[in-house]
């Protein structure tokens, strides 16, 4: 154990104790100026703790966690200490409470939005984009035509089709999935096409000298080379899909769904439920991103960016 890591951990323990004590204080009743001095000194401790940990290879992994926890702590202490009204910003403890007491509702919303709309829409949109990219692969003419159009469409505020899709496919999850399909199609098309052109002439010549057919070259050379690009699109699309489904729900839903929950509970000023829903959405978003990143690592283990330094 290095000196930096040891000091960092020691300071973190000190910080933890200090935070524990201040949390008890702030929840017990009104606090005075001395209390905020303690918070200020804890801020200094937190800074040094993170600085020490960041200097160590193992400790550096702890820093983001510590930082996140520190932000949550500050949020809690400031909101409770200054008695910020809950309609403005509920403290994390109230959000945690809301998650616990509305577990069934949150689960139903999650199933409606994520399982029924986001996942099928994402699969269909990415699948269609991928297949289209393969279809136009043999036609440079279509590629030159579709790529600029695809790039342009990717930059457009495509989320605006949400009201149209709700009109066409009704209020239920089908319309949300349709929005997701449209939003995810073009990034996948553009990225896959870019990925398929990644091989160098010397590699293709080698395949040619092996008398490899078009399909063989595609499967064993060009698709693997395209994988970093395809996964890039998959990851971008995971976030886009969630956004698309949530925003589409602002335009009309059955009375379930995360976007619906956010827009109605905001209207009723139940901000803790809104934050609870956002927490679920954030968790779903980051977990699917992490899952995709994990799969990417397994599939493209050969890529230089994963080499140990």
């Amino acid at each position: 154990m290095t000196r930096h890591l040891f000091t960092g951990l020691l300071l973190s323990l000190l910080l933890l104790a200090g935070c524990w004590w201040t949390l008890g204080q702030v929840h017990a009743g009104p606090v005075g100026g001395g209390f905020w001095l303690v918070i200020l000194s804890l801020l200094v401790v937190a800074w040094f703790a993170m600085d020490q940990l960041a200097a160590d290879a193992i400790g550096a992994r702890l820093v983001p966690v510590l930082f996140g926890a520190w932000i949550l702590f500050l949020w809690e202490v400031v909101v409770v200490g200054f008695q910020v009204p809950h309609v403005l910003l509920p403290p994390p403890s109230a959000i945690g409470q809301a998650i616990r007491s509305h577990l069934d509702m949150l689960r139903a919303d999650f199933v409606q939005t994520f399982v029924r709309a986001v996942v099928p829409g994402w699969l269909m949109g990415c699948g269609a984009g991928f297949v289209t990219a393969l279809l136009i692969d043999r036609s440079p003419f279509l590629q030159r035509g579709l790529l600029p159009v695809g790039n342009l469409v990717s930059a457009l505020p495509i989320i605006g089709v949400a009201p149209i899709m709700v009109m066409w496919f009704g209020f239920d999850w089908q319309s949300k999935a349709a929005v997701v399909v449209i939003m995810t199609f073009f990034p996948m098309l553009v990225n896959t096409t870019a990925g398929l052109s990644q091989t160098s002439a010397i590699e293709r010549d080698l395949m040619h000298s092996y008398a490899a057919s078009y399909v063989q070259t595609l499967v064993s050379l060009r698709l693997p080379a395209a994988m970093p690009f395809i996964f890039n699109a998959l990851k971008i699309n995971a976030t886009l899909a969630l956004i698309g489904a949530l925003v589409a729900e602002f335009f009309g839903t059955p009375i379930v769904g995360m976007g619906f929950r956010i827009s109605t509970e905001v209207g009723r000023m139940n901000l803790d439920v809104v934050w609870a829903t956002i927490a679920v959405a954030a968790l779903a978003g980051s977990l699917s991103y992490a899952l995709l990143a994990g799969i990417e690592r397994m599939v493209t283990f050969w890529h230089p960016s994963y080499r140990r330094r």
Partner: protein
Amino acid sequence: MAAAAVRAPVGARQLHTGRFLPVLTVTLAILAIWYLGAVWLNAPQVIDRYDDQPWTWQQLVQDSWSMERPVLPAPHQVAEEFNKTVFQTAITSKRSLVYHAWITLSATLLGFALGTLLGILLAVGIVHMRILDRALLPWVIASQTIPILAIAPMVVVVLGSVGLTGLVPKSLISMYLCFFPITIGMVKGLRSPDVLSLELMHTWNATPAQVFWKLRWPAAVPFLFASLKVAIAISLVGAIVGEMPTGAQAGIGARLLSGSYYGQTVQIWAALVMGSVMAGLLIAVVSAAERFTLRAMGARP
């Protein structure tokens, strides 16, 4: 892109290998599919209205391209509505699409400016302070895996309850959306000078400020512009979505929402076209600024 087209000699070879012909073909194909789709989707309603009277195919096609509230309006209907609300209406009128576009544009630009500032400041901090690099960067990345737009209604309502309405809440959403690509791009850019250049600065006894202004910042400018192009597009998306929960008062997003309330499909499509035109223009402006700046900095085109 446009400059390249101007400079390149236009000839048969250019038409063969260039982008113009393929893009034209694809665009025409999209228009043709659109017209066919309009017939396909509107036909049930049109036939319903004929009420068992005999009708011809020609009549069906004509009627489905000129419905009052079509399921899918034909392109020329959208163009007509666009022309009517953009060029035939005084821009101060609330019926003018230019008026709504300006509302959205002002929020977009304010959010873009704030987001750029925040993004650059974060990147400078991350590059120069180890602790920020370790503590902040993972959270900046994680913040993008969560659907930020979902909090748009909350931001608008909460800020409205403390008296902040109109431009500011929308531009805050835009800012939140567009700081990320700028931070990531700038961190990459500010770190792009190689060790040799940094050591050269060191041998010249350059101060950190000198290293920043004379080496890191110029090296980061190309990265900055690449990020700005992404950021301005999503800043527009943020502003449009930010307008939706405010109760459909003004702006492109409000046009979308009111169109969906009253079933005015042509209005929705016209607003969508306006949004797309704005996105295209904004990106073109940033690209022009990029070319101008890079040329002024001595880059070879």
